[in-house]
């Protein structure tokens, strides 16, 4: 990459694209040329910049001035003022706001915010996701080169095991162990699948990685294939992520052109290819066996396990299924070594974690911080406190299948083991922060509604249980429930956990259990006093019928 005096970045998340980011980009290109600046100023589309209130945004470095919303007709003035004359185009600047995401990280370097530690997201919003050259300049494909030319597959797996990396899809299974299972599984034909069916409500970290740094995932997939002895990989992307699919397609093509995919990669006898498979809208396909069924062209209904995909996966062949965020950890681990990775996070959960902060806080968005940070810190530092000075009541972690965490647990370190010990789960990293204007019955109702919609219907406990759970919660919200309903709800949650075939049903009962454990008084007020203490539930006296 040549030296430039300024970098101009254009946000290109779906909202920006929808608001004309492409036109703004094209105009910038024209105007830079018209002013004769194209050789000294670089211009990139950079995905999601972590702020969406004034898109499309144009950010100019090194000054880090943020303009937005920028319309195509503003571009001439912006280029003339800022880039040609060197004055700020103040009339176009984005409204001052507490910043999150990528921009928060920038301010952090200037000492105004506690620093995030960006390992996975370090290139997101910095490089052009459609340029393999920019990726390579930022250490891209170095880990692949090292793995293929200096390490045996066994050494790669050993390094991942040593790093202590645990799956980021929600379950926290040790990644190195999973790789070893697939590598040791009998059979010459093996597959790697990247699970990019991110559908957990409140979670969009994978989308940002896919849209902002697709090459890092392609690199990780190739390394994974080399390590476990696979010949082909599939990326299962949810159907709604059209921009991500486009970026991945471009990245795969560029990797082919550079010789990172195809026959005899890096002159070794390792050959490999990656296919993209689009989902068609089904939350359940995030479950690995349902995902495999879906790639095979069937209904996304989970298979009974065991046997596990590590031995009987895609087309009944040994298959490695890893989440996007998990795979994004692979190149930095190999590039910097397992020992370096262990300096991040906690001893039992090394590394960083990407969280999405949502709900009633001042600053919503995405952060990447070491494992082990507490909820209180997240709200105070990155969420910039509760909105309107309200009181923190509860947080819903990890999308629907996580936990409802009461204020009393907000000082628990967020890592796999501490959360397990507290009886709650971290899930996918979504943190939905709720203030005391929210009703816990109402929230649980929304969650159960989600599960009853998304249950694939294959096994009875899940199909009927979620429907019944929603019915009871609706009756509580309408003020027509009786106390015995709470016993039924408790039993139902346990039955869902014990009897369901897959993770969807097994975790569907978790919010019910949390609600009854931590917020029983509030629930009972709906029944005994016929009052919703938060004033949210309708309490109409109408019975709910399925």
């Amino acid at each position, binding site marked *: 990459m040549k030296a430039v005096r300024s970098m101009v970045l254009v946000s290109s998340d779906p909202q920006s694209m929808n608001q004309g980011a492409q036109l703004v980009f094209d105009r910038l290109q024209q105007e830079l040329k018209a002013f004769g600046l194209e050789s000294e100023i670089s211009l990139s589309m950079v995905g999601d910049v972590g702020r969406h209130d004034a898109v499309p945004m144009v950010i100019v470095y090194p000054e880090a001035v943020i303009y937005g919303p920028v319309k195509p007709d503003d571009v001439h003035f912006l280029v003339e003022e800022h880039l040609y004359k060197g004055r700020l185009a103040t009339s176009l600047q984005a409204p001052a706001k507490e910043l999150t995401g990528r921009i928060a990280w920038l301010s952090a370097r200037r000492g105004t915010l506690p620093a995030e530690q960006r390992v996975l997201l370090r290139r997101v919003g910095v490089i052009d996701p459609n340029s393999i050259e920019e990726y390579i300049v930022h250490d891209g494909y170095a880990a692949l080169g090292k793995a293929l030319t200096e390490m045996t597959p066994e050494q790669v797996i050993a390094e991942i095991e040593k790093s202590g990396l645990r799956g980021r899809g929600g379950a926290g299974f040790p990644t190195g162990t999973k790789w070893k299972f697939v590598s040791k599984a009998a059979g010459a034909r093996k597959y790697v699948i990247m699970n990019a069916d991110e559908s957990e*409500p*409140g979670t969009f970290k994978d989308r940002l990685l896919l849209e902002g740094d697709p090459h890092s995932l392609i690199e990780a997939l190739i390394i994974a294939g080399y390590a476990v002895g696979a010949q082909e990989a599939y990326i299962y992307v949810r159907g709604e992520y059209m921009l991500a699919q486009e970026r991945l397609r471009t990245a795969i093509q560029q990797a082919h052109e550079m010789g990172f995919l195809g026959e005899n990669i890096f002159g070794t006898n390792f050959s490999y290819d990656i296919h993209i498979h689009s989902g*068609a809208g089904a939350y359940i396909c995030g479950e690995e066996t349902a995902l495999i069924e*879906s790639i095979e062209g*069937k209904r996304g209904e989970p298979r009974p396990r065991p046997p596990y995909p590590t031995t009987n996966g895609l087309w009944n062949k040994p298959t490695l299924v890893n989440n996007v965020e998990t795979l994004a950890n692979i190149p930095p681990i190999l590039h910097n070594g397992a020992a370096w990775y262990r300096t991040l996070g906690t001893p039992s959960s090394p590394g960083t974690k990407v969280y*999405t902060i949502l709900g009633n806080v001042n600053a919503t968005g995405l952060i990447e911080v070491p494992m082990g940070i507490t909820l209180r810190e997240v709200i105070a530092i990155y969420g910039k406190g509760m909105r309107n000075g309200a009181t923190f009541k509860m947080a819903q972690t990890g999308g*629907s299948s996580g936990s409802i965490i009461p204020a009393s647990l907000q000082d628990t370190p967020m890592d796999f083991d501490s959360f397990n010990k507290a009886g709650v789960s971290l899930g996918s990293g979504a943190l939905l922060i709720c203030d005391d204007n929210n009703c816990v019955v109402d929230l649980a109702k929304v969650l159960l509604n*989600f599960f009853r919609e998304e249950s694939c219907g294959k096994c009875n406990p899940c199909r009927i249980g979620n429907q019944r759970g929603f019915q009871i919660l609706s009756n509580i919200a309408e003020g027509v429930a009786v106390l015995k309903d709470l016993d039924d709800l408790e039993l139902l949650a346990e039955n869902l956990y014990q009897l369901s075939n897959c993770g969807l049903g097994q975790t569907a009962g978790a919010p019910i259990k949390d609600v009854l454990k931590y917020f029983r008084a509030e629930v009972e007020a709906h029944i005994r006093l016929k009052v919703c203490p938060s004033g949210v539930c309708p309490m109409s006296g109408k019975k709910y019928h399925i």
Partner: protein
Amino acid sequence: MTGETIDKQTVMNAVEKAVQRYGASRDELIPILNDVNRSLGYIPAEAIEEISKLLKVSRSQLFTVASFYHMLSTKPRGKHVIQFCESAPCHVAGGREVWVTLKDTLKLESGETSPDGLWTLITTSCLGVCGVGPVILVDDDIYGNVTPDQIAGILARYH
């Protein structure tokens, strides 16, 4: 696409194009159905029939797949499909009020199509743009930070 039936030739062309693009293989069924759904607005019975012949998969098998996925529809939909995210992050951010306004403005309940065939209103699970909830999706356009008073203005763009 409106509620009126699509002529057979259009259906055949859409199916043929999709099957050619991905190949007549069972593994490619979902991408094929996706493409047909995109070009016709839904998957008519004639399309199922034709795909069944080309892929040598029974109609019941095809129907069970086509009816499983949210993005595929076996029933005609309105010219514009409005999807409202009903997941918790949008709900907490004020989604409930937006939903009530949407229903009142369109005079539709979830899953219904307006008599003039212009609108179909459906609820959906998380669309992955939760940083800007409440979120609605009109066809392929995402709207974030939606407030009830913006609904009329958003809908007016699609007449």
